[in-house]
């Protein structure tokens, strides 16, 4: 684990008059492997290592009796800064405000739609759920069951395309006086041009105030490409990381933050509709460091 490995290096460096560049590079090599092991994308890992190196060559390490500890702290701070972003509430200023959920197949969008609905109802909002997933068997039924569980209205959009269904659902939500409409979409791969075109059309059709990427926390190196492509398609306003209860290190979170600058808003911590928390950057940084 990184903290143990760095602990060893810190121990070796204790009381050294100064940290040589060789010692520092040895430390950075260990850090690099640990970050890759935590599924931080390679380009992001490189960026973090050069940043840590730069700060570590500064005065604070040279003066310290515990240079190893200082280097670890520099990395921890770099991670927390990257993940920190501006913490703001969801933009629910329109009536109805549409929250668009998008992401890969099986990421947890439909379940997250239910969780988000429950959270917002708890904040006193009048919420409706709708799905434009016409591909996956029983996708809309799944969301209808969840709507029942969290006691919100399910709106069945009508139309021959996902965009048309979405538009009709937004109109209906407006007529029924909802504050928020959560829009669940079909899972898609970023290399599927036709489906990426579809999500662009859906986003353009509904003018969503929040466009959230739902990403599985155990995603590997491709989290970078996934975040970039969805950002380019829908101009993401945030990300929700799911299945963090799988004891994942969660390096995918760094890839999202680094490539899009978009904040991670919530994390899914289980299968039930109440397994949903506000994202905590410090805690995530700690997990990635192991």
């Amino acid at each position, binding site marked *: 684990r990184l903290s143990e490995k760095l602990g060893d290096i810190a121990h070796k460096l204790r009381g050294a008059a100064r940290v040589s560049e060789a010692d520092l590079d040895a430390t950075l090599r260990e850090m690099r492997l640990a970050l890759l092991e935590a599924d931080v994308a390679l380009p992001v890992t490189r960026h973090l290592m050069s940043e840590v190196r730069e700060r570590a060559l500064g005065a604070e390490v040279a003066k310290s009796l515990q240079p190893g500890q200082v280097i670890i702290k520099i990395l921890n701070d770099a991670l927390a800064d990257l993940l920190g972003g501006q913490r703001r509430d969801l933009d629910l200023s329109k009536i109805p405000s549409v929250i668009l959920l998008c992401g890969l197949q099986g990421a947890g969008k439909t379940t997250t739609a239910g969780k988000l609905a429950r959270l917002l109802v708890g904040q006193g909002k009048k919420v409706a759920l709708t799905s434009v997933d016409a591909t*996956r068997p029983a996708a809309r039924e799944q969301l209808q069951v969840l709507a029942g569980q969290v006691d919100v209205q399910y709106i069945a959009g009508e139309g021959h395309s996902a965009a048309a269904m979405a538009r009709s659902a937004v109109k209906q939500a407006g007529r029924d006086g909802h504050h928020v409409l959560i829009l669940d979409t079909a899972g898609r791969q970023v290399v599927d041009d036709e489906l990426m075109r579809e999500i662009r059309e859906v986003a353009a059709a509904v003018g969503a105030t929040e466009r959230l990427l739902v990403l599985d926390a155990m995603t590997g190196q491709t989290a970078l490409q*996934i975040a970039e492509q969805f950002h380019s398609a829908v101009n993401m306003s945030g990300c929700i990381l799911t299945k963090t209860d799988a004891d994942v290190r969660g390096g995918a979170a760094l890839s999202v933050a680094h490539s899009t600058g978009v904040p991670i808003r919530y994390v899914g911590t289980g299968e039930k509709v109440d397994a949903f928390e506000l994202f905590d950057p410090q805690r995530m940084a700690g997990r990635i460091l192991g």
Partner: protein
Amino acid sequence: QLVPGGSVDALSEEEWLDIEDGLIMADCGGELAGELVHKARKRRGGSVQALKESMISMLPEVKAVNMPESGPFVLLVVGVNGTGKTTTIGKIATMFRQQGRSVLVGAADTFRAAAVEQLAVWVERAGAEMVRQHEGADPAAVAFDTIQRGVARNYDVVIIDTAGRVQTDRGLMDELAKVRRVITKAYPEAPHEVWQVVDGGTGQNAVMQVDKFREVAGTSGLVVTKLDGSGKGGIVLQLSHRFGLPIRYVGVGESLEDLMAFDGEAFVTSLLP
């Protein structure tokens, strides 16, 4: 360029680093990528071919699926949430139906919203039949019921779908162990195969997933899904290296025909320039 050991490198330093980067970005793992490239370079005439051969040799030898001489072939499908179990079962059922075999599927995911409804659509499309119980029923009871019926009515194939679960959930892992035990209770030589479905875009967490599931369910093979996406599935190399489980099939899309046998050579080629 000379490398320690005295052999002459066929590729430049930069070319080797690019190859290593490629392996890392394909989710092979930082340490494994470094070791593979290092070993390939040390071999006489370090070349991409040497690397390719060492990667192919890491893949487990393909043993035949444990098909029984008589009675139903029983397959248990397990894995983490959302990896593609239910869809994969639709594809496997279709494959067996196309071979003229009768297929019975047990809907042992009794928890998730519309799980049984989703499976029912796939079973119908595959031309197979399904056993289900009421929502919230004990998954082990559904599995038992399905096996019994499969044996009594001479089905050729019985497939049990289970709920997704994370390997860190003690209660759900115990439940899975119980499902497996009960299957054996219903039919002693079953399950003949236990396949874990792994999402092809997963990172290094897949190692812990396979480790824990194998401990609890006795995994005998893997299916890697969503390889039609941006994920190259390099995690397969890591899993082969550590567990030696055969990769039976790969999923390459959301339709019934999107199932292919795993081709080790093609897979390794896709990870290299």
